[in-house]
């Protein structure tokens, strides 16, 4: 599948939060794009759609799904695909992304991005789900790498190799979450740079940066949580610069879903991302 044509420049954007709707329309801050969680706009009507329509007039939109369950064992929910399609039609997003994860179970929707083992069988089903999604929506899907707290014994692929194979088979693009690389590497005792070395970087179309939490296990071991509730950590900014040095400038999202601060704080982090991107342009 051909890469989606994008009006999103390789600059920073932020996640669109209801708390900021009014400030955004009043201030019209300089920003590359807004990213929305698709599921938050699956209600029939009301203020969320009104504000999004108004903001869409001034900014490109990146549509980020969290509930499609691409990695799940069951078939994709066609109703959910239809809801995504109507958002694609209505808001004409420049980028569309989803996760290498599952969330739908026979008991219902489990509201997290849950991990899957990396095997020949899971590769088949993920590829088939991505192909189905791209066909149905008529747009390229950018697949996001997960944050991990543990790994499956049954996995026979390394994550980066698994993702590279998905790209090769489906023609999807990638959304590289740099915080997730950092969190997973810390939790699984692996090297973030080795992950980046193995990762199919030439297919990355967007970057995510987010804050993390740390908890201490009973064993005394520190575990990083992909919590999206704080500023981006300095170590993640360093890793981001290392990624951008290899990929060149890419649209970069500051993700904040919990403890949402004033708009100005997110714009300050977006400017920091823009400075990294500009340094890279000057160095090139």
């Amino acid at each position, binding site marked *: 599948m051909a890469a989606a044509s994008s009006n999103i420049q390789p600059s920073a954007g932020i996640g669109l939060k209801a708390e900021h709707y009014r400030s955004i329309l009043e201030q019209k801050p300089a920003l590359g794009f807004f990213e929305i969680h698709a*599921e*938050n706009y*699956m*209600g*029939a*009507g*009301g*203020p*969320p*759609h*009104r504000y999004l329509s108004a903001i869409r007039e001034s900014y490109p939109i990146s549509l980020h799904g*969290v*509930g*499609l*369950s691409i990695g799940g*064992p069951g078939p994709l*929910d066609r*109703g*959910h695909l239809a*809801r995504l399609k109507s958002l694609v039609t209505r808001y004409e997003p420049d980028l569309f992304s989803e996760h290498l994860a599952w*969330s*739908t*179970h*026979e*008991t*219902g*929707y*489990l*509201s*997290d991005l*849950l*991990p*899957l*083992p990396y095997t020949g069988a*899971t590769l088949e089903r993920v590829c088939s789900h991505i192909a189905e999604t791209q066909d149905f929506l008529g747009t390229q899907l950018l697949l996001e790498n997960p944050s991990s*707290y*543990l*790994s*499956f*014994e*049954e996995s026979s692929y390394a994550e980066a190799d698994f993702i590279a194979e998905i790209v090769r088979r489906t023609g999807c693009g990638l959304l590289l979450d740099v915080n997730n690389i950092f969190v997973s590497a810390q*939790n699984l005792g692996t090297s973030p740079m080795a992950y980046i070395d193995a990762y199919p970087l030439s297919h990355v179309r967007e970057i995510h940066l987010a804050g993390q939490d740390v*908890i201490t*296990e*009973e064993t005394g071991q520190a*575990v990083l*949580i992909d919590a999206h509730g704080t500023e981006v950590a300095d170590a993640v900014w360093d890793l981001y610069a290392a990624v951008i040095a290899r990929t060149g400038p890419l649209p970069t999202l500051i993700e904040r879903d919990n403890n949402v601060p004033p708009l100005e704080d997110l714009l300050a982090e977006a400017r920091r991302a823009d400075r990294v991107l500009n340094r890279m342009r000057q160095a090139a």
Partner: protein
Amino acid sequence: MQEVEFHRAVADWSAHLPHPRMRIYRNNVSAALVNALKVRFPVTEQLVGREFFFAMAREYASANKPKSAVLIEYGAGFPDFIRAFAPAAAVPYLADVAALENLWWRAYHAEDVPCLAADALSSVAPEQWGSLRFVFHPSAAVMQSAHAVGSIWLAHHGGPPMNAIRTGLPEFIVVARPRDEVILRVISPASFVFLDALARGNSLADAIELAQLHYPDFDIGTQITGLLSLHLLQGYTS
């Protein structure tokens, strides 16, 4: 760790955790569902406090997973769960406050369609009014409660404070969202009987007759003006 084992442990919160770190995933799921309920039922939470609400919401979420990834739709059954939740019995109005918050939430996310204009009936010949039936706006709802839940809700949104409310008195409420703002009003018992009859599809004449049967001083002119100013209607059929 096997995939099937993992699925079971995240879906069933009483199941054995095959690995201690699985608790992180289970907590993420539970925190997201509890948070969805906090967002939908903020007054309910304020009435019982964070800790009580968290425990109650987690118990609901443990047994009631969302049917889809659209969390906007999650929690419609929470008021009924509260009604049967023994520890909440000390707050007799809690379930009805939650039911009212459900109506607010549905109004907020309802389809955007224009309301019937205030002068919409001027083109209808007076002799035809009796046979009119109304289509209610997708955001509109009427509710009755054995408790003063409209006043309780308003007390948490800048209205007269809780200590000024006799919570044990019945109340009748309408909710609608004509444009951006959800409007919530306490109405008279007579208005409720009238509006509820219309909402059930009765003709205007039948709704008036029913209201007058229960409330002999029911004033038709005032009620019809009120009906249109409450923005409850989308259209009518004659």
